[in-house]
C-alpha cells in the first residue's frame, strides 16, 4: 500500500533543479507527480517516480541529498467535492495531513492524491472502511 516518495534537498542555487531533472532523464527515470516546497533559502522537491529505488540510488551517487518517505496515494473521482469527501472521513477520525499534492491519472481520468500522514496504518484502515480507494504502489509507479 505504501508508495515510496523521493524527497530531495535543494539549496537555493540557480539551475540546481534543472541539474536534477537531467540526472533523472539520463537514467531513464520518469516523474509521475511532483511538488516543490520552497522556503526563502532552500527547497524540498518531492516526487513520485516510476522506479523509486533506482532514483534514490542514482541521486545519492550524483551528490543529491535525498530521502525516501512512505506516502499514500488515494484515488478520487475527478468532480467537485471529491477531495472533500475523503478529507471529511479523515477529519472525523482526527487524522492530520502533513502535506499533499495531486495529479490526474491517465487511464480512468480520476484524480490521484499523494498524502503524507503521521500514522499510515490507521489512515489506511479509516479510508478503506470509508470506501476510499487506495492505490497500490505498483499501480502508481506504472501510471
Amino acid at each position, binding site marked *: 500500500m505504501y508508495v515510496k516518495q523521493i524527497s530531495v534537498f535543494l539549496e537555493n542555487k540557480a539551475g540546481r533543479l534543472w541539474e536534477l531533472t537531467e540526472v533523472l532523464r539520463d537514467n531513464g527515470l520518469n516523474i509521475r507527480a511532483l511538488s516543490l516546497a520552497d522556503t526563502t533559502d532552500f527547497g524540498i522537491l518531492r516526487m513520485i517516480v516510476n522506479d523509486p529505488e533506482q532514483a534514490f540510488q542514482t541521486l545519492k551517487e550524483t551528490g543529491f541529498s535525498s*530521502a525516501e518517505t512512505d506516502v499514500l496515494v488515494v484515488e478520487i473521482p475527478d468532480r467537485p467535492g471529491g477531495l472533500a469527501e475523503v478529507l471529511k472521513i479523515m477529519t472525523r477520525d482526527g487524522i492530520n495531513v502533513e502535506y499533499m499534492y495531486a495529479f490526474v491519472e491517465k487511464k480512468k481520468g480520476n484524480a490521484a492524491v499523494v498524502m503524507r500522514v503521521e500514522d499510515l496504518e490507521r489512515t489506511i484502515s479509516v479510508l478503506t472502511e470509508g470506501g476510499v480507494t487506495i492505490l497500490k504502489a505498483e499501480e502508481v509507479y506504472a501510471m
Partner: protein
Amino acid sequence: MKYWSEEIETMSRSEIEALQLKRLKTTLARAAHSPFYRELFRKNSINPEDIRSTEDLTYLPFTRKNDLRLSYPRGFLAVKEDEVVRMHASSGTTGQSTVIYHTAHDLNEWTDLVTRSLVVAGAGEKDVFQNMMSYGLFTGGLGLHYGAERLGMMVIPIGGGNTHRQIEFFRDFKTSVIHITPSYALHVSDVIKDMGLGPVDFNLRLMIFGAEPYSEATRDKLEASFRVRAFNCYGLTEMNGPGVAFECRQSEGMHVWEDNYLVEIIDPATGQPAGPGEIGEVVFTTLNREAMPLIRYRTRDLAQLFPETECPCGRNFRRLSRILGRTDDMLIVRGVNVFPSQIEHVLMKLPEVGTNYQIILNRVDNLDRMTIRVEIYGKMFHGEARELRLLRKKIQHELKEQILLSTEIELMEPGALPPSQGKAKRVFDNREI
C-alpha cells in the same frame, strides 16, 4: 622518551629567565649588524648594552610585518650572505612576501625545537610520519620534516593535496603520525568515509595540527573521527616556523619554548602589555637566531598567556592558549567583535552540520547583515522541511548565545562549499563603508 633536551626542558623559572637575559643581550648585539636594526637603534638612540633585564625590552619599538616587507630582500640580514644556508618566505597573499634567513646554527636549533615538540606529543623513532603540509618556501613542510627525521621516524614527505593517495599511504605504510591543517583534516575525514574506510583500516595514533586557528569542538570531532590524539603546534615563518610553542596536554595551552623565544602579550590597540591572563596580541623576540634576529615582532595572532608556570609534564615554560584569531581577522559586526573561530566552534558541535561553512557579511540599509552558509550532513536529511527549519533555528540560537548577534542561516547541500586543501577561505566581507 620524556624529554629531548632534558637539561633545558627541566630548567626552573629562574634558570630560564637567566638564560633568556643572556641570549637577549647576544641577540641585540647581533641585530645591530642588520641595516634595519642599526638604523632603528640609531634613530631612537638605543644602546643595546643598556638593556639589563628582559623587562627593559619594553623600551624598544616593535617590529612589524610591514617592516619586513619594506626591508625586502636583505634589510634584516645580520650575518654575511655566505653564512646563510637557507631562506624561507611567507606567502605573499597580503602583499610583498617576507623573507627569513637561516644559518646552519639556526636550522640546527629549529630542528631541535621541532624534535622536542614531537617528543612532547609522544612520538618516537618507531613511528611513521606522513607530512601532509606543503613543502617549499612554506615552513610547515621542511620544518617538521627535519625534526621528525632527527627523532628517527620514517618520514613520508608527501606534502599537501591528492587526498586519495594520502589515504592509501596511511594504509600501505602504516602511518602513525600525521602533520596536517585542521581544515584539510576535515576534508580527509570526509573522503575516508566516502571510500568506505574508517579508523580500523589505519594505524594512525597522533595528529599534529598547525598553520591555522580552529576550535576545540573541531578537535573533538577530528579526534573522534580518526580515533587519534591531536596536538596543537604553533609557529610562524618569522619565528622559523612550527615549533615555537607546543601542547603537552597535561594542562591547558602550548608551552612556548622560552629558551628560544621571548614572549609578550600586548593590547593591540595601545601596544601596552596586557594584564596577566588577558587576551591580546602575541609578540616574540628571537633569542637564538643568528642570521635574522627579530625584536618584539608583532604576530597579529590573538591569544592569552596563562599566568601559572608549573606543569605536571615537568616543564616550566609558560603556556600560550590556542590562537583565538588574528588581529586582522577580527570582524566588527554591528559594533560587536566577532572571531570566525567562535562561529566555527558553534557549528562543529552540531552533528547535523557538515564540515564546510562560509561567513558572509553584507550591509543592507546601513545595517550589517551576517549570513552563515552551512552544509547539512546528508544522512540527517529525512525529507522534512520542518526538520530543516528547526535546524536553522537551532543554529541561530546557538550562535546568538556565543556571539550575541542574530544571523541568517543558509542551508547548503553537502559538498556545495569548496573544500579546503590548505588554509581555508571562510570569510567574505562584502561591506562597503
